[in-house]
C-alpha cells in the first residue's frame, strides 16, 4: 500500500454538519499551518452566520423576508445570488433557490460555495495540497502524495457503511440524496419534496456548482443529466431509486 506523506486532519462543526480537512503540510511552519486552518474555519463560520436559513436574524433570512436590500447586506450575499442564478440556468431549472417554499433558499449551493472559499484560503496560505469535505460535498487541490490523486468514496445510499464507488477527484465532488435527512429536496416545478434518485453525485471544477447540480440530479433524476453534461467539465453518477445506475460525462471510477 502506498503511504505518501502524512496528512494532517481537522474536523470543524459548522452549518449543522462537520467539515473534514485533510492537509498536506509541506514545508509550512506549524504556526502558519494552524493560522491557515483557523482562517479557513472562520470563513466557514462566517458563511454559516450569513446564510443560515434557520437563524431568523441572518442576512439571508432578512433578505428572503424582503426586510433588507442587497446593498445593505454583506457582499457575499450578492456573490451567492449570482452563483445561484448561474446554477439555476445550468441545471435547466432543476435547481432553483427562488422556487423554495419559504422563499429564496441558497442552501443547495452555499455549502459548496463556502468550501470553495475555505479551500482557496488554504491554497493562498501556501499549503501544497488539501481536501475539505463539507458533510459529504468535497473539494481538493494539489495531490495527497507524489503521483497520487485524491480519492473519494461515494456513500452507498442504502448502506452507511458501504461505498457505491470510488472516484479520483481533481477538483470537486458533491452528492445529494434523501437518505441522511429525509425528503428535504424540493422539486422547483411543484414546490413539493421530490427525489428521483437514491444518490446523485456530480464532479466538476467548482464545488458551488457541483453542489447545486447534484441537488438538481437528485430532484430530476435522469431528466437532469443532460444539464450536467452541458456544463463544461462536469459529470454525474446517478443511482436510481430502483438500484440501477448510470453515469453522464467523464467520471473516473477506481476499479481497484
Amino acid at each position, binding site marked *: 500500500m502506498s503511504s505518501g506523506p502524512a496528512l494532517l486532519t481537522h474536523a470543524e462543526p459548522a452549518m449543522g454538519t*462537520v467539515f473534514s480537512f485533510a492537509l498536506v503540510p509541506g514545508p509550512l511552519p506549524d504556526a502558519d499551518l494552524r493560522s491557515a486552518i483557523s482562517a479557513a474555519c472562520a470563513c466557514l463560520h462566517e458563511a454559516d452566520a450569513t446564510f443560515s436559513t434557520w437563524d431568523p436574524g441572518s442576512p439571508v433570512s432578512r433578505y428572503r423576508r424582503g426586510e433588507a436590500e442587497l446593498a445593505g447586506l454583506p457582499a457575499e450575499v450578492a456573490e451567492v445570488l449570482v452563483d445561484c442564478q448561474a446554477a439555476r440556468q445550468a441545471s435547466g431549472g432543476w435547481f432553483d433557490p427562488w422556487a423554495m417554499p419559504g422563499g429564496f433558499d441558497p442552501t443547495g449551493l452555499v455549502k459548496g460555495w463556502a468550501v470553495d472559499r475555505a479551500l482557496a484560503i488554504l491554497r493562498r496560505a501556501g499549503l501544497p495540497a488539501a*481536501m475539505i469535505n463539507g458533510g*459529504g460535498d468535497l473539494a481538493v487541490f494539489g495531490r495527497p502524495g507524489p503521483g497520487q490523486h485524491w480519492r*473519494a468514496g461515494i456513500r452507498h*445510499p442504502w448502506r452507511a*457503511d458501504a*461505498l457505491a*464507488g470510488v472516484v479520483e477527484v481533481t477538483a470537486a465532488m458533491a452528492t445529494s440524496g434523501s437518505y*441522511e435527512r429525509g425528503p428535504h429536496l424540493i422539486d422547483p416545478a411543484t414546490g413539493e419534496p421530490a427525489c428521483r434518485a437514491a*444518490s446523485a453525485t456530480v464532479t466538476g471544477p467548482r464545488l458551488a456548482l457541483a453542489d447545486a447540480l447534484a441537488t438538481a440530479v437528485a430532484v430530476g433524476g435522469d431528466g437532469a443529466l443532460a444539464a450536467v453534461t452541458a456544463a463544461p467539465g462536469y459529470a454525474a453518477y446517478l443511482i436510481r431509486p430502483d438500484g440501477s445506475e448510470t453515469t453522464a460525462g467523464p467520471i473516473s471510477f477506481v476499479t481497484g
Partner: protein
Amino acid sequence: MKRASWYLTAGAVAGFAGVLALSSRTSPAVPVALKGTSPARAGQQHHGSGSGSSTAGGNSSGGQPAAAGQVQSATGPVTPYGYGELDVRVTISGNRVTNVTVPVLRTAEPYSQQLAAQVIPMLKSEVLAAGSAQINGVSGATYTSQAYATSLQAALDKLHRK
C-alpha cells in the same frame, strides 16, 4: 445495534476483511481496514454479538498474521440495514478478499425484498472494489453533526489525526 453497524463499517471498507480483524472492541476498525493491513491481522477472529461466527480454512491462531494464500472466512453479526436485516460472509485468501456472500437476508415486506434482491448483487462488487481502494474522503448526502460521529468520514478523520 450501534456496535454491530461499526463491525460492518469495517467490513464494508476493507471488503469485509475488517470483520475478521476486529478483536478489540475499543479500537476503531476502519483505520485498520483502510490502511489495507487488516488481512495481515486476519488471524484474530471476531466473535460478534451473539450471531457472529467464523471458521478458518487454514491455521488461524489468534494474533498471528495470515500467511499468503491462507484461506479464511468469517460471518459477521446479523445487522439491520434500513429495510431489514442482513448478514455478510467474507472469504479471504492471503491478502485478497475472494468472495462476499449474504447468507442471511430478512426483509419486512415484499418491496424491500425486491429492492434488496437488486441491491445485494451490486453491493458485492462494490464491496470488493472498496477493499483494494484507499480513500481520502467520503462523498454523500449531507449528514448531520450527530450522524457524522458514526460515518466513514469520521473514521478517516481519526485515521490521519496527528
